[in-house]
């Protein structure tokens, strides 16, 4: 089972070169059933990565390009009058999909942002008093530009919390870039990708991730991490219990990808920065948050 995921990761890394760790983390995020936020400058391969994942997982994928004038109805869908039947019919928006790419989420107005984020949290949307269930599994992979850029509306902390992980992609290295320039166009490569997984397999994997055991040593390590984030000397935002639970979930998915049914401290450390980076940055931004997360990681002793 996990081989399929590894196959998926290796295929994706042929399209998005030199981003193995990020791809793996993204996959971890999906396995943990969480939403993913990718923050970086335009043109580093965010969209390509998400598209590749969409193709390979075989999930129904839609893409929403957020702009400042995008309205909630554009995302959720809306009632449209049918003159033949003389009644309103709900037209599903692009959100009715399994894997939603929310490109440049922080360019949208807060109102639209919150419409999306509410859907992410609850797995359903309400339009004109009618509640519509979103399909399952339902993932949102949002990308956003660093919020110092002009024309962005930074996501409030409470909404950042809805994302299980955040990733940075960074510029590709010079050698990689040379390879990219010489190789095929990623868009063409994408055309050749075939789904590796079925929906049932994904559901089953999600279940297996849930069953990963957490030993008391690891649990106390996570507790220690949370506790240290709340100490007065720590620069970042303090971590909530929900953040701790997210950390457990992500670690479990990582352990699952490693082929284990129990957690190690290493699993926690592997997902630590992506999981808490965007939660402890506060209004200093995700970049700063990741720095603090690293400090937290290095300062927290791993219990024996």
């Amino acid at each position, binding site marked *: 089972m996990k081989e399929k995921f590894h196959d998926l990761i290796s295929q994706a890394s042929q399209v998005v070169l030199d981003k193995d760790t990020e791809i793996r983390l993204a996959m971890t995020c999906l396995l943990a059933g969480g939403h993913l936020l990718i923050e970086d400058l335009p043109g580093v391969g965010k969209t390509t990565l998400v598209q590749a994942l969409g193709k390979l997982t075989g999930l129904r994928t839609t893409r929403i390009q957020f702009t400042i004038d995008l309205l909630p109805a554009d995302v959720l869908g809306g009632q449209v009058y049918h003159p033949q039947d003389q009644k309103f019919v709900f037209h599903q928006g692009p959100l009715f999909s399994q894997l939603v790419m929310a490109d440049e989420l922080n360019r949208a107005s807060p109102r639209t942002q919150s419409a999306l984020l509410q859907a992410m949290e609850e797995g359903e949307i309400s339009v004109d008093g009618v509640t519509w269930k979103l399909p399952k599994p339902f993932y949102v992979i949002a990308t956003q530009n660093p919020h110092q850029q002009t024309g962005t509306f930074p996501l409030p902390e409470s909404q950042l919390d809805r994302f299980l992980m955040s990733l940075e992609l960074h510029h590709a290295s010079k050698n990689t870039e040379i390879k990219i320039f010489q190789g095929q166009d990623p868009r063409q490569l994408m055309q050749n990708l075939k789904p590796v997984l079925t929906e049932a397999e994904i559901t089953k994997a999600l279940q297996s991730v849930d069953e990963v055991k957490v*030993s008391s*040593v690891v649990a106390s390590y996570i507790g220690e991490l949370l506790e240290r984030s709340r100490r007065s000397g720590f620069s970042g935002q303090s971590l909530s219990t929900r953040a701790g639970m997210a950390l457990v979930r992500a670690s479990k998915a990582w352990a699952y990808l490693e082929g*284990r049914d*129990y957690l*190690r*401290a290493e699993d926690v450390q592997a997902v630590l920065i992506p999981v808490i980076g965007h939660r402890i940055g506060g209004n200093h931004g995700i970049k700063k948050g990741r720095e603090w997360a690293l400090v937290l990681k290095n*300062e*927290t002793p*791993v219990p024996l």
Partner: protein
Amino acid sequence: MDKPFFSQKVLALSFLMAMSMVAVEVVSWVSIFSFAVLLWKFGSERWGWKPLGRRTTGVLSVLLLLQVLFEYRTLVGQEPAYTFLLGLSALRVMDYRNERDHRFLVMLGFVLISVKALFNLDIYWVLPSIFSFFGFWFSLLPQGLPGRGRFLFRIFLLSLPLMAVLFFAFPRVVMPWAMSRGSTYGEIGFSDQMNPGKVAELAGSTVMVFRARIDDTPLKTSEELYWRGSVLGNSRGLSWRPQRTNLKAVKEDVPKGSFYEVALEPTSQNYLFTLNGTENVELETGSVIPLQSGLFRATRPLFNTTVYRALFNPNYIDQELPTESDLQIPTLSGRVAEWVERIKREYPKPEERVEELKNLFAETGFFYTLNPGVYSANDLEEFLFDRKRGFCEHFAGAYGTLARALEIPARVVVGYQGGLYNPWGDFWKVAHKDAHAWVEIFHNGQWMQIDPTRWVAPLRLVIGATSFFALSEEDQRAFARDISWKPQVSSDLLLWDQMTFWIDDLNYRWTYFLIDFDRSAQKSLLQEVLNDKTRFLIFAIVGAILLTLLVRFLSFGRESTSESKRLLQMVEAWGKKHHVPRNVSEPPLTYLKRLEDKYPNLSQVLDDIGRHYDQQSYRQTPYLGDSKKLEQLWKTEASKV
């Protein structure tokens, strides 16, 4: 939200019971104080009275301690300990608010029961103690636990074997300092100061002194039972004081006779009460000092119920020659002196004088009563010629002094007379009520017993003190000399008596059972059943089993993680020594990998340690290999580097 005390019925009831058991033993002020505090607590929980704050109860505790110290000058001993414990318990109930108080209270409760058991093993107290004990345990079990009673019962069943082992094998430790009843113990006890009224005072108490099994002796009726406690040789007229008694010379040949057994309640004194005609006494623990004039003393004060066996010789005669001091008397005056002079003049022979003495007491209208009024030490005249009301001690004292005045050597014996026969258990129960005093005169070359009470109130001797003092004053007066008279007893009273006998018998058996297994019986049991070698073997085996169980118990549960943790700590310590310490944030397995890279020849054992850790600490499954061997391997491999 505060934890309520009285709503937890089991706890409250158990604690009240434990406190009541102790409260009956202490001076009333502290009992009243304690129950007032309890009532206050009840009011504060039920009717919203303002409870005492912790500070107030703290101050009260200190005051209580000071009061106890002031009153008794010590905390050691039964009564001061009881007093302090009781007051403290009540104050802690007032403080009762949370789980911590609960634990403390339960601990206090256990102490209360234990202290009670330390001094009193009567079956009446054992039953409520058991109830309280279970109540306390019950209250300690978590509220949500289903089937708490059953759970407790299971624990009880499980603990039975250990209880049995402890009962038979645990050494009995005696701590005299802890057992002393305190200097001002209020209970009336036997004493050999026969001041006027002293014996009467004793006789007012129904507290039991001892039980005796005399079925092997020829003595069958209460009339014949004279239990000697002490002999008084120093006359002050009506009252007598003890004299120094010498040790009895040890007889070479042990005379034949029958044995009887006495189970003496704790007295904190040395007296061993024996029948007239007792040759020898064996104490189950400790030794006995035989004294002249047929007395026996224990070498140490008796703080526990003590059983002793005595040899009874029906043909015993005391021929110890009287000394000068057996004729000592205070100066007599008035009508007493006149009477003595007249008898001396008229009757030169001792037999006649003895006869005259008898006539004096038997014929001149003396009245036997517990409440004769107050006499002073040498108030013979008032007693003999005016008031003529007295108790056995007055008759004995007066007779003794007069006999001496008539140049007949005499001494007063104090002790108990008769007892209450228990047909269920075939034993005699002797209480303070049976306290008695009589006289012995040296006549015809031997000491003879004279009981003046026999002339004044023979009924007292025939039906026993318990029945006699149960009569009304009129009946006592009317029938005292009529030995054929029997008080009428209604049938329901008879039934009640039967019940009392039965319960008393049960209690006796229980006490006996407990004492029987006391040190000596325990020792002899072990000695009988086992010789030294097998005993040692059994102890060794039991010890080994207990030790293994203990070790297993201590290491169980923690075994899975602690073992791997220890291994890793060893590696860590080693790494530190070799300048490759583990960073705090470095996960153990990562660290082991790093070490493996640095020390390739250790990689095998480090790998195994890593797997061990992974399985025990992370996967939480037992390690399949031998962890002891792994530890050894690590030690040898690491030392090579």
